[in-house]
């Protein structure tokens, strides 16, 4: 990993920004590299005061695995939602679930909440002020505990490993 220096407060962000710059420009010329590098250095410096919690990726490979898993789940999710929408006679049993959070960092909670929303059958609807409970709306969950467990094992645990361990 790239070490943190005063002029490089968020190395991962800088890398991402450079990548995005090149993506935007669709060019990897020396000029664009220099310009992108410059922006990748300057923008984090400018925006650093606005980062309340600075996520640090402890296990990058796990992150990659997580991303792929979520992408897969998104496709499944869409298939299932489409089925439910297109079959009006399907019997749904919607439910509001109170999901007890283990995560503590704001950033990771956000990732979890987003993941829940993008993945099958669930939308994260409300984070209580104490940050301990996430209210989730499930479109069709007969077994509430099973859904909670699935979220916990499939998403929350890996996130905790990636960011918070």
């Amino acid at each position, binding site marked *: 990993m790239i070490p943190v220096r005063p002029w490089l407060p968020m190395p991962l*962000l800088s890398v991402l*920004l450079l990548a*995005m*710059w090149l993506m*935007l*420009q669709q060019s990897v*010329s*020396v*000029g664009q590299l*220099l*310009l992108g590098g410059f*922006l990748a250095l300057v*923008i*984090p410096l*400018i*925006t650093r*005061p*606005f*980062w*309340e*919690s600075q996520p640090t990726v402890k296990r990058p490979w796990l992150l990659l695995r997580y991303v792929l898993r979520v992408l897969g789940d998104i496709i499944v999710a869409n298939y299932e939602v489409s089925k439910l929408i297109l079959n009006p006679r399907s019997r749904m049993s919607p439910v509001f679930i109170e999901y007890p959070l283990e995560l503590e960092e*704001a*950033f990771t*909670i*956000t990732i979890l*909440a*987003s993941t829940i929303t993008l993945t099958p059958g669930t939308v994260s609807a409300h*984070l209580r*002020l104490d*940050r301990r409970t996430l209210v989730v709306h499930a479109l069709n969950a007969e077994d509430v505990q099973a859904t909670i467990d699935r979220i916990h094992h499939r998403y929350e645990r890996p996130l905790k490993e990636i960011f918070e361990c």
Partner: protein
Amino acid sequence: MPLLLIVLLPLVGGLLPIMSSNERRGACAAVAAAPVLIALAVALYYAGAVLDGEVFRQAYRWIPALDLSLALRLDGLSLLFVLLILGIGLLIIVYARYYLLASDNAPRFYAFLLLFMAAMLGIVMADNLLLLWFFWELTSLSSFLLIGYWYHQSEARKGARMALTVTGAGGLALLAGLLLLGRIVGSYDLQVVLDSRDMIQADPRYLPALLLVLLGAFTKSAQFPFQFWLPHAMAAPTPVSAFLHSATMVKAGVFLLARMHPALAGSPEWLYLVGLTGLATMLYGGYFALLKYDLKGVLANSTISQLGLITLLLGLNNQIATVAALFQILSHALFKAALFMTAGIVDHETGTRDIRKLQGLWRTMPLVAVVAVVAGASLAGVPYFSGFLPKEMLLKESLDTQLLGGLSWLIPVLATLGSLLSVAYTIRLVNNVFFQGPMPELPKTPHAPPRLMIAPGLLLAALSLLIGTLPALTTTALLTAAGNAALVGDTPELHLVVWQGFSLPLLMSAIALIGGAALYWQRKYLFAFQRQFRARDARLLFEASVQSLVHTTQRVIDTLENGSLQRYMLWLVITILGLVGGTLLDATELRGPLPLQPLDGVVIVGAGMAIFAGLATAILHRRRLISLLMLSIVGLMTSLAFARFSAPDVALTQLAVEVVTMILLMLALFFLPQRTPKESGAARILRDVLLATAFGGTVASLNFAVLTRPLESISQFFIANSVPGGGGYNVVNVILVDFRGFDTLGEITVLCIAAVGIYKLLNRLRLFMPSSDAEGRPWSRDRHPLILISVSQTILPLALLVSAFIFLRGHNAPGGGFIAGLVTAVALILLYIAHGVDWCQRRMSFQYQPIAVAGVGLATLTGLGSLALGYPFLTSAIGTFYLPLIGKIKLVTTTLFDLGVYLTVVGATLMILANLGKLTTTHRPSKQKDKEKA
């Protein structure tokens, strides 16, 4: 020696008393008298030559565009008046020195008096119609000031205003009349006008011009029915009245009649208008002079009567009568000034002017009584006093008049009646005040006045007597010279002898004298007769009519400008529909020659959505948030339309602006009431729908008409020159920053000013903040949702990167400083939404105003840079550099300009939103409070 001195000396001399001390009255009067004396000397210097028939004319260029030159003349008529004005003026100054009280502001008095004098001199010496008008109005003004001199008295204020209103109105009529005359003649030069009598009287505009000029003269001279202001002008200090009634103001009117006599008189119109007005005025004044109890009231009405007499003389279209009028002007000036002075002394010494309270004053003030008797005799037309001869001339000439056709015999009868009346009121005036028994109890114990106070009156009385006894010796030369000026051709030879043998006029005179005495004796019947009528005070009537006029105007204005924006908008729409819609109705064919492009489904759906959302915005306007959401759909569809029709830059800008506008309107939604009450009735809604439909129809028709016509525009130039001249491939952007960069500079200036103005508006703003939403739900306690916070901080660097991208691309691809600025600003606003103002402010230690200003400054400096190189403001320069590794770099100065745009947008947008947000952080109504209330 310049004639101008005669006018200029009193005018400029008016400043002398102002600079002198109020305490030293003598000095004050002396410095006031000095310029008058010098002016009199100047006039006398010319007098000999003028009496010999010479006419002096001097002119200075002034306003050629107005045909107004500073042209003065001194002919016989002018001389007569100049001598009267300056001579009597001088005596008035002396008199006033003793008249004014210690508490009166003497410098102001003398200044106004000299101004008045100068204005009057200007009238009589003007040799240009417009110049005459200038001075004419100046007399109205200066008399306004003099009448209102004792402004703490209501009568003075009202009298002054009435005088100004009546004479001012007359002045405006006179202006119109003189302009009309000038038009007829083709010149405003007095001599030219006076020489063009035939041309004038043959012109169809003669009658209106005559009417307008006469309106001016009659109002000024207090002719019937405009006489009512004059008695109320006596609220002025008596020296003013003496001056006003003798040599100035009212004399301006008759002067004008005499002055314009050669050009306007001689026609039947003149005869009827002037003659009959004079006659009516003479009788009216005489009758009411007899009935008044106030000493000055009698004198004022006598002035009206006497001026009626003069007007009648001037109106007879008769040369001798005209000379008689001039004679009477002279005579009246002398005895009326003297009479007013005596009245002033009586008032001054006894504290009252009520005839009923006064009698037997000759015992304490015999000299005053002498003056009164002599002046009164002149007024009554007693032989060997100055008033006798003009009256005789009137009676004689009235016999020849064919004024009323078959009823012409009425004229001499009525003229005699007029004389009779003047005899009656004069006897009443003199006898009741100075004789008729012992002195009664008076508010003040009368003393003999200071000798210098009575001296002017004595001098005038003596002059009156002198003229009366030796008319030929004293006045022939002057009257002949004056007559030469007032008549077409030369003055007929005058035989001014008192005793002309027995004749019909003498008999009429005798009837007048005896009858007058008899009327005086039996006046109680007259009083009883008059008592049958309700006394109507002209002042009250005038005030009431002005009041009612003001109330009417207030009603009109309050109805018309009822402070209703809807009403004002309605007028705007009506104007548009009238002017533009009306024009479109003329169009024979709305559709032009261009073929229509085919429709496709996406466009139909998009347009349908825009129309639907627009209608929904309007129909659902009472449900504000929904209306706003619909507006946002319109905004989105508008952007998509721009994209669809090849305007990516416009689409981007519209999108970015739309979002910021939405945020602003959301803020408004919170601080404004959440509900719109139903206020418009069905009729109003229908009206507005019809208006809106008509307006929309107009817009659509115009749009369609233009779209279907081919256009040859200058745009090819921009497309051709964008790359070679502007160094950019995005023509729109090159137009913005280069071809029409000046517009853009103005545009960012507008943005910057708006932000600064909003900052002003937010100063000490007390906001209304609802403690619950429209349905009464309390607000959520989650001020800053955690997930939003995390995302906002993630988006910020991305947005900055995108900003940089859009900014740098702008010159060659869609983008540019403005859009980049909005992207940055919106990302920062997201931070504000997520974290609140306090949190953000702690992390952004800079103020936004300097950024916005610096942005405009940078753009301006970029423009100014080209000045240094000798090019016009905002000329762009392109530089191409080669750098190792990187290659060719093209730098255009307009990039700097665009950077200015960027900074302005960021600074201004944040200044608006963040400052508004700042106001609410500390004072948020809490739910806790609500509960306590419940």
